[in-house]
């Protein structure tokens, strides 16, 4: 079981006199659990997500983001040694965090022309496997090995170098995951998010999580801009991440609506850069009924 542990996290915008946004966030998400992170606009939810993933626009001034892994978190064939089971994500590059099993689902996914979904996702999957090897290999081994960035890729056909997961194997995997999410096969050959509708982009985020099989997935407003049919598809996909891969979900949302389909084990409420209230699924319902002013009153006393 993996645990994402955020301790007293402070962060500000990485410019001179950058605005302080996170003022001591404490949060813990276990794999196999679904957590909802709620809060009014500007309370720091999205910043928390970006800081976990390593967005360069924010500077962490205090606190830790730890990932605790179990020996078998990367499957039976990959034994994680005892001294490499806890990682401070803040010391790592975004791609290294991802390789350790932290996934960020974007509120506004990038549109990338000229790079097909298939090429992108297979490159990502192979990069994850390769980066893992590097992160866990002994220091001595690491010195021997030449710094080897990248594969020979061609934009039209994808990497020439097979990588660990070959083209045929990957296409089969992609097909299965797309069926699960009720996505049209034609997406595989389209350029990454280019010209996708809002709903298609969100579905695609969940698809990517399904391919990369993270230990912890942080989903930033995955439910915004979805019609009811698409919301159900996406919810089904999120539940499958948890049920079939044991992924822990930290779901950032404004609305109770998605929580009807993806029932949280725990709800956290943020206010002014801190988590101020926690509870079970009923907290989200209470919040929906009473609003954030109620939270404010509960936390700060009379408004």
């Amino acid at each position: 079981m993996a645990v994402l542990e955020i301790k007293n996290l402070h962060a500000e915008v990485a410019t001179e006199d950058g605005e302080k946004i996170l003022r001591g966030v404490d949060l813990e998400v276990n794999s196999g659990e679904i957590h909802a992170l709620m809060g009014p606009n500007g309370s720091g939810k999205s910043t928390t997500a970006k800081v976990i993933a390593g967005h360069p626009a924010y500077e962490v001034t205090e606190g830790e983001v730890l990932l605790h892994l179990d020996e078998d978190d990367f499957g039976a064939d990959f034994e994680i040694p005892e001294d490499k089971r806890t990682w401070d994500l803040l010391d790592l590059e975004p791609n290294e965090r991802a390789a350790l099993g932290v996934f960020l689902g974007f509120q506004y996914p990038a549109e990338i022309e000229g790079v097909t979904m298939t090429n992108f996702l297979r490159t990502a999957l192979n990069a994850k496997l390769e980066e893992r090897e590097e992160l866990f290999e002994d220091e001595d081994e690491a010195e021997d090995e030449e710094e080897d960035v990248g594969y020979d890729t061609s934009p039209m056909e994808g990497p020439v170098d097979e990588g660990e997961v070959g083209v045929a194997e990957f296409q089969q995997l992609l097909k299965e995951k797309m069926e699960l999410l009720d996505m049209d096969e034609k997406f595989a050959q389209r350029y990454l998010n280019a010209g996708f509708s809002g709903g298609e982009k969100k579905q695609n985020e969940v698809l990517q999580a399904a391919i990369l099989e993270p230990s912890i997935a942080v989903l930033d407003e995955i439910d915004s801009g979805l019609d009811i049919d698409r919301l159900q598809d996406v919810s089904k996909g999120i539940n499958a991440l948890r049920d079939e891969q044991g992924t822990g979900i930290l779901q950032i949302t404004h609305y109770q609506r998605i929580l009807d389909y993806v029932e949280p084990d725990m709800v956290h409420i943020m206010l002014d850069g801190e988590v101020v209230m926690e509870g079970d699924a009923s907290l989200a319902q209470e919040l929906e009924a009473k609003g954030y002013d109620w939270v404010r009153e509960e936390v700060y006393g009379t408004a």
Partner: protein
Amino acid sequence: MSTQLPANLSEETVRQISEDRDEPEWLLETRLDALSALEELELPDVIQTPGRRWTNLEQLDFEALVDPLNAADRTERVTAEGVEVLPLVEALDEYESIVRERFGSVVDFKTNYLTALSAALFTTGTFIYVPEDVNAEDVKIRAEMNSRSLFSHTLVVTEKSSSVTILERVSTGDAVEGERYFSNLVEIDAGENSYVQYGSLQNVDENTYAYTLKRADAGTYATVNWIEGNLGSRLTRSDVETELNGDASETKIVGAFFGHGDQHFDVNARVWHNAEHTTADLVTRGVLDDTARSVYEGVQHVGREAWDTNSYQRENTLMLSDESEADASPKLIINNHDTEASHAATVGQVDKEDMFYMTSRSIPDQVARNMLVEGFFVPVLEEIDVDEFREDLAELISSRLRA
């Protein structure tokens, strides 16, 4: 006139070149006429921004660069069924009347100093003749320059309702001490309802100054599509132009360049809408790394009689380093109101949010950047009809990224 006639350039030199090739009198006269015009002609116009002249052609030392009597090249020509593909000199025997009529009919040798120099001194080049109703794919010209200087002239003539795709690849062979000069003039006379795609991939060594002017005259219902790929050279000045002289004629001018080190690209695309119902699409994409520089000018002229014109232009330059520099100047000149037109140019760096998105999916920085650059060129690659050209260009881009 700032450019002097190099001392090693004389009437005798030109006569010698012509004599060695056993050329007809009219061609010698054309050469001599070009030679005598040199003193009057200016270098091509270059873009100027306040305090800066982007391309310093004046600094070229033609006396050192031009070695007219020792020109050497190895040119391989692959023909297709029904098409004549000949060295221009050989075409003078069999196709003299066509060559005489069309040679210099699209590119005026007195356009500037460099075109006149080329007409006076050219020693190589290709004649491509596509007879009526012939459809041909995959005509290939692979030219390798082996001397200090080389002047090439290519003439393409397509007759009514014919079609052809041509790939020209220009590179340097034997190494030469010091700087070199390569001049490449291409003219296309596209007959009624004919289709030409002319792809050019320039990858000469980085001691070479490259000048090219490619110009087409598109007749009624004719389509001329240019693909201009520039990767090599120390400095490139490239002008690719189409005159849409026939009603319902069309053109695309697609460009790609990738500069690194201290390379300099001066890339220009121009179209003249001179008839009715004509369409033009100008698309150029370039990438710059290290201290490379680029300057782009795109011009769409819509003539007074050009009713029902469609004309589009886009240019995007992507800079991979802080030290690279780019300037872009898209121009639209409309003299007929019955026109739908657009023009846009952007200069920017790799998008940080795109990078974060990709790295957050485990892809290392360098790999992510390379994928974005390769993806950036895809709209250009997709325009290429000749598979070999598309693969070569993709391969050159890929290996430059991983150098």
